[in-house]
């Protein structure tokens, strides 16, 4: 039965247990792992050694683009393409152009944040091997999982399993690719 593994997954009952287990895994030198919890658990990402601050930047640049797009649209329309004398106002009535510029900024930024988050998380991704794990549906309800992936250099079917069983897991099982 040489089915390729995605990794070995351990189930815990409380976030605290999961955190402890994750920390121990780090100490044990595991690098390729992921933790699953029904709500964001503070410090969990750090515990599995994961840092990522791209989303704010994406949002920021999207916002900047939005601002520029918004204002230049108005400038082009009111000054360049079809300038009209509207109530004796100058073609470039910049104070009147502020609201729209603001709105486009927010709009673009929001899209940046949303799409950025999804894209970086690689979503949508309806299929993922970890779903093969037994009882994994509890991950979105009341259980906490730690999965050490097969791609990890230290990964060894037996050892890793044994290691996880030593972290106070309720249950340890293998996850097929």
């Amino acid at each position, binding site marked *: 039965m040489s*089915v390729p593994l995605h990794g070995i997954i351990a189930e*815990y*009952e*409380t976030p605290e247990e999961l955190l402890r287990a994750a920390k121990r895994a780090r100490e044990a030198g595991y690098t390729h792992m*992921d*933790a*699953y*919890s*029904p*709500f*964001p*658990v503070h410090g*969990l*990402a750090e515990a599995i050694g*994961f840092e*990522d*601050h791209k989303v*704010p930047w994406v*949002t920021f640049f999207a916002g900047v683009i939005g601002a520029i797009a918004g204002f230049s649209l*108005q400038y082009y*329309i*009111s000054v360049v*393409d*079809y300038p*009209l004398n*509207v109530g004796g106002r100058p073609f470039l*009535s910049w104070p*009147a152009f502020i*609201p729209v510029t603001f*709105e*486009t900024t*927010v*709009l673009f*930024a*929001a*899209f940046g*944040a*949303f799409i950025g*988050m999804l894209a*970086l*998380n690689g*979503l*949508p991704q309806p299929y*993922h091997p*970890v779903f*093969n*794990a*037994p009882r994994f*549906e*509890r*991950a*979105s*309800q*009341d259980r906490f999982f730690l999965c050490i992936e097969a791609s990890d250099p230290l990964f060894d079917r037996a050892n890793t399993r044994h290691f996880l*069983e030593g972290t106070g*897991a*309720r*249950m*340890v099982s293998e*996850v097929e690719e």
Partner: protein
Amino acid sequence: MQEVAQRETGALIEGKHTYESITHKIASVAMGYRHPIAWYIVTAIAAAGVFMLITAIAWLLLRGVGIWGINQPVGWGFAIINFVWWIGIGHAGTLISAILLLLRQQWRTSINRFAEAMTIFAVMCAGMFPLLHVGRPWVAYWLLPIPNWTGAWPQFRSPLIWDVFAVTTYFTVSLLFWFTGLIPDFATLRDRAKKRISQIIYGVLAMGWRNSAKHWHRYESAYLLLAGLSTPLVVSVHSIVSLDFAVSLLPGWHTTIFPPYFVAGAIYSGFAMVLTLVIPIRAWYKMQDVLTIKHLDWMAKIMLATGLIVFYGYIMEIFTALYSGHSMETFLVKNRFFGPYAPFFWALLVCNGLIPQVLWSPKVRQNVALLFVISLIVNVGMWLERFVIVVTSLHRDFLPSSWGMYYPTIWDVMLYAGTIGFFTFMMFLFVRFVPMISIFEMRDLLHQTDRHRQAPAGAPATPVATTEVSS
């Protein structure tokens, strides 16, 4: 299941609850739950309202806006009043979910989902009016900057164009924010679903969310950013709506205080509407232990606060008008006090100014029935405010020769009532198919409040040697 001791800090969640139980409580409403008879009755009535809405719109498109009561000089009537009213109602949602999130207010958790849904449907209702109130709706798309072969463009000095951008942005961002919040819950529903079909539907909506710590990490920052963006947005939207009036030179419209007090008013009416909806639903779906008295109390307090700001706005408006010494302005005040529409003005002061003062008393704030009544009164009051602003300013402006009166027609009323029907209809569908409370945030809240407790004194985790591999 582990037993859970009664929590002392449980004012936000009452009764014994585990992650499982709270998940079940909320999720089950959306899946295979026997809905109270009230749900069917209200939804039926609301559906009737939707049909009325359709009729009113059909006739409107057929005959033109002449079927309404508008005229010279009152060019804007119900349509714009209702537009502003609905937009205002939307604001509570964004405020609760965004601003309170930034302020780390835990009590927002159990109402934000609900309020956001309200925002979205309210903005839908609001959006209908500007579209329908134009004389030639079939060319309303000219308000969008679409390159076209006439070479003509929108005119960006007009507050109406600002509205177009503000409202669409507001709607889009609210939708994104709402949906972002829903993703993990859709995952929950997907994982709880028994039927294949609901598995697929919720699965698609969840987009393969798997609660990974990495996802949560990015998710939280995105969620926070969206909140941060919504906050200035919610302020800007009603400010811009208020500019529709403030930018004009009409006495009673041409007022610099409008933006702040419109925003306050919006939040005011928004919270009123949340209460109006939450109170019955909370009862029908037995949500008292997650939507606690404490929540109602807090909301009542916010209403009180914003209500006072609005009231201050009224007073300042009158003061500046009189202080300006501008004959037209002083006349306007006189006309509001004693003119033909004076009853509306005084009723507005009573509904928005006087009655809500009873909220000072905790007893009232914690009396559900009373709160419900007050929330209704405030809704009415806020509608009256818009009526007074729009109509009394227009019907007697600069030249007495062109003064006139405004009387709505049956079609005005039908369209308005129709949108209320539509709004209710959508809200109840939402309650039926989508978790009305953010489940993962409730779990989080539960966890937060559990922190103080030492780990459960249950049997330690015993490794279960399982050899079989999941397949």
